[in-house]
């Protein structure tokens, strides 16, 4: 059973049914599924949920984020990833030898890094750059988008972002906290990739997005 997506407000009844279970951001009361958040409602496989369309980024384990080094400690780096919690990158989570007295030789204050959230505890977020593809970001540009639109920008298994990468020839990294890093051969290519991503963000809720983006890319290509 699949219903059309609808914009719902907190407290609004999504569906009245005894067979449907409440999923993310929903609650069940007297056989009614009630939205607990502003967003798009979706009912599929007998589970109702609300997909957020606004709000600040909420960190989750496993997320890939882009952040800026804001502090050095004896055990690692403090990173600003745009969330309320402290984000910490331990020297144990860096895949190379780090001189404890010269942390700035690896990452200095002001450097941008791409990292994975490997743990979330009471004290904050723990980051890791151990895997391939993570670490310091050299050159290129970083800009922010609405973090709730990131799933659409990445697309199913990266289909959308790969489409943009192929069409622009740029290297793109997307952080789930809403920051995107682009590195291309020329500034024009980078700006074209940025425009393409902003186009996806703007039209994130529309149907047939992949086709539209393909069309947009061929129309606007220099």
């Amino acid at each position, binding site marked *: 059973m699949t219903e059309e997506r609808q914009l719902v407000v907190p*407290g609004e009844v999504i569906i009245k049914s005894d067979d449907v279970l409440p999923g993310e951001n929903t609650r069940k009361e007297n056989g009614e599924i009630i939205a*607990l*958040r502003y967003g798009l409602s979706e009912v599929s496989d007998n589970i109702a949920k609300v997909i957020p369309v606004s709000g*600040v980024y909420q960190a989750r384990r496993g997320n890939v984020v882009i952040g800026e080094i804001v502090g050095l400690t004896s055990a690692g780096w403090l990173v600003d990833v745009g969330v*309320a919690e402290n984000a910490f990158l331990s020297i144990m989570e860096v895949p190379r030898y780090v001189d404890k007295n010269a942390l700035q030789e690896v990452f200095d204050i002001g450097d941008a890094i791409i990292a994975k959230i490997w743990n979330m505890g009471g004290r904050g977020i723990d980051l890791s750059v151990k895997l391939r593809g993570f670490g310091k970001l050299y050159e290129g540009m970083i800009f922010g988008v609405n973090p709730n639109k990131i799933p659409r920008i990445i697309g199913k298994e990266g289909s959308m972002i790969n489409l943009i990468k192929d069409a622009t020839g740029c290297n793109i990294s997307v952080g789930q906290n809403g920051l995107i890093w682009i590195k291309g051969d020329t500034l024009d290519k980078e700006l074209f990739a940025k425009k393409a991503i902003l186009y996806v963000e703007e039209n994130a809720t529309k149907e047939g997005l992949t086709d539209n983006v393909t069309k947009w890319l061929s129309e606007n290509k220099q």
Partner: protein
Amino acid sequence: MSTNFKRPDGRKVNELRPIRAKVGIIPNADGSAMFATGNTIAIAAVYGPKKMHPQHLQNSEKGTLRFTYNMNSFSVSDRIKPGQNRRAIEISKISGWALEPVVDLKKFPNEVIDVYVNIIQADAGTRCAGINAASMALAHAGIPMSDLVVSISVGKLDKTIVVDLDKAEEDFEEGEGPTDIPVSLTSKGKITHIQLDGKINSEQLKEAIKAAKEAGKEIYEIQKKALKNVGEEIKYG
């Protein structure tokens, strides 16, 4: 309730002032909304959840809802001194309490949700307009909430219960004089805040709350419509 009572501006006793509502007015904020009834205009901006500073104000059990009500110096005909005064601090507290029951703060320990309400034009009922705007702005900011809050001021002019008082009615001098009762409720009719300024007997208070619930339904529909049409101004009445 006598229905032939004449209100200064010719409204019916249960008639609201014309309402305008718009969501998404401040691009920099995480959520924002404007709510206007008649000549009263309130704008609300929501920031966060973000980390609470200074640290000693952090609550590790649940988050904090910090509500700041501010009347702009040009909002009234006699310029008021800018900044927080006794009245603004009190209304900030009251409005925060009116919204807290619906906001799920348990999800944000050590964090704060900042709500800023500015009254850019005042003609009575500013706290109600502020709460209405803040409720929409909180929802727009993606804060987990169990319901929206609507707020309405009901009053008693001499012996008649009327809704949504304007400044002229608040200064009503005849008979028993004016009584002002701002009420905030959820869309299901549960009261989250009620104040009373003046005199009223229990029978009439019940009647006033009933009138507030009726009027609240109309405001809820406007809030819902505004949230579903972000960036569009919703007009009513």
